[in-house]
């Protein structure tokens, strides 16, 4: 298995299945609560994060280990001009593993080259966020096998890194991808070609209602205000890409609606009460999945 967890692209289907199984074993009451006693992780977050950071801390604590972190980038030596490479070499001397979030794409790959301990990528700019992808897959797999499912992706598919990584992983399972994105926020052409080269069926739709009744999974991503020139065009777009109870009248009984969170109006609060809504469970699944990753790299 891998020493570092950098990109979902580094993993075979077999390795992903193995990690999901492992996460399942930590998602019970009978796991070893002292598995990582005496181990220490360093959380290096050079970008804001609430749930990723907290769930890594939670995962470490549940396995008996401890976490150290810097409170803010402003307080760190980065403002003194230290390179990430140097920071990583220094922190490698303190901790048994490093969890890194950084605004630059490829930062985690670079860190893994300079670290003497395992590095887990917790998001690098618009690049990869492998623990998110694994928890997305884990949540789907709790309800259905991943093979050959119909997955709809709705929202900002251009900048949404979680959507790109998940689509890549699903291509390993023969899933079909249905994309629904506002003009200008469609899946980038290179990613579309890459998925099709891998044999994935990718169908682009203009309106979610065209396809929603066929879906097994609907993955909704946040549409950010700053992608639009003004409030009016943002409002127009978000109102036509909003999931409401009315839209869900004819969907499959087992439909899962997922969202990496935080959401900002893409899913009506009234949907939360419907059996399709699994985004809070998905968020909670971040803990066993990250327990599996931490245990894997430090055991």
């Amino acid at each position: 298995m891998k020493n570092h967890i950098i990109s979902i692209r580094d993993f075979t289907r077999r390795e992903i299945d193995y990690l999901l199984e492992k996460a399942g074993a930590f998602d019970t009451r009978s796991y070893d609560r002292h598995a990582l006693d005496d181990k220490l992780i360093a959380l290096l977050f050079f970008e804001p994060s609430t749930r990723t950071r907290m769930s890594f801390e939670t995962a470490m604590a549940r396995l008996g280990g401890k976490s150290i972190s810097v409170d803010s980038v402003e307080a760190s030596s980065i403002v003194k001009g230290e390179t990430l490479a140097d920071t990583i070499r220094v922190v490698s001397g303190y901790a048994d593993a490093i969890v890194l979030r950084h605004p630059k794409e490829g930062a985690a790959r670079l860190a893994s080259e300079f670290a003497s301990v395992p590095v887990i990528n917790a998001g690098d700019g618009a690049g990869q966020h492998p623990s998110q992808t694994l928890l997305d897959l884990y949540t789907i797999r709790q309800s259905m096998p991943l093979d050959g499912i119909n997955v709809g992706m709705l929202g900002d598919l251009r900048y949404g890194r979680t959507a790109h990584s998940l689509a890549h992983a699903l291509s390993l399972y023969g899933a079909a991808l249905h994309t629904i994105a506002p003009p200008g926020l469609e899946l980038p052409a290179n990613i579309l070609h890459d998925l099709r080269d891998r044999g994935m069926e990718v169908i682009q739709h203009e309106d979610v209602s065209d396809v929603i009744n066929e879906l097994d999974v609907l993955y909704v991503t946040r549409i950010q205000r700053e992608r639009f020139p003004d409030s009016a065009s943002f409002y127009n777009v978000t109102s036509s890409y909003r999931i409401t109870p009315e839209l869900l009248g004819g969907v499959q009984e087992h439909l899962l609606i997922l969202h990496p969170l935080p959401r900002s109006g893409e899913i009506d609060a009234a949907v939360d009460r419907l059996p399709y809504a699994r985004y809070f469970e998905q968020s909670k699944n971040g803990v066993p999945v990250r327990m599996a990753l931490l245990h894997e790299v430090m055991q």
Partner: protein
Amino acid sequence: MTEESQPIRGLLISPIRSGTVIDHITAGEALNVLKILGITGSTTESISVATNVASHRMGRKDIVKIENRELRKEEVDRIALIAPQAKINIIREYRVFEKKGVEIPKILRGVVRCPNPGCITNTNEPVESTFEVLDKGLHCLYCDWWIKTDIASHII
């Protein structure tokens, strides 16, 4: 037919005593080859350039002759990106001392700049850009971006 009216055959540039002749460059790429080699009007080498000359093998080709400079392997590798059929002839005392083809390496380090402004290789970190060379183009091993067209403009 008188001697004056005969068409001039052969190349119009003379042999060099020592240095490098790059032959069979993809037609039209000679100036990009010079750019890759860092040769501008202000450098000291004597350079001869022939573009779009007839070639049995290629139809048309470019040739570059550089006096008193023998190309190193890293330089040759860079040329391979835009002129994969190029042949490098190292000349000493008017004779071909060594003849070699160019080979596109599987991994390019520090040769092309990643077009992604957000890529970690475009910062002050102590790391070289690293691309794997695939049929579809060049793939950045740090940020997953691709260079599929106009590779010459990305060469460092």
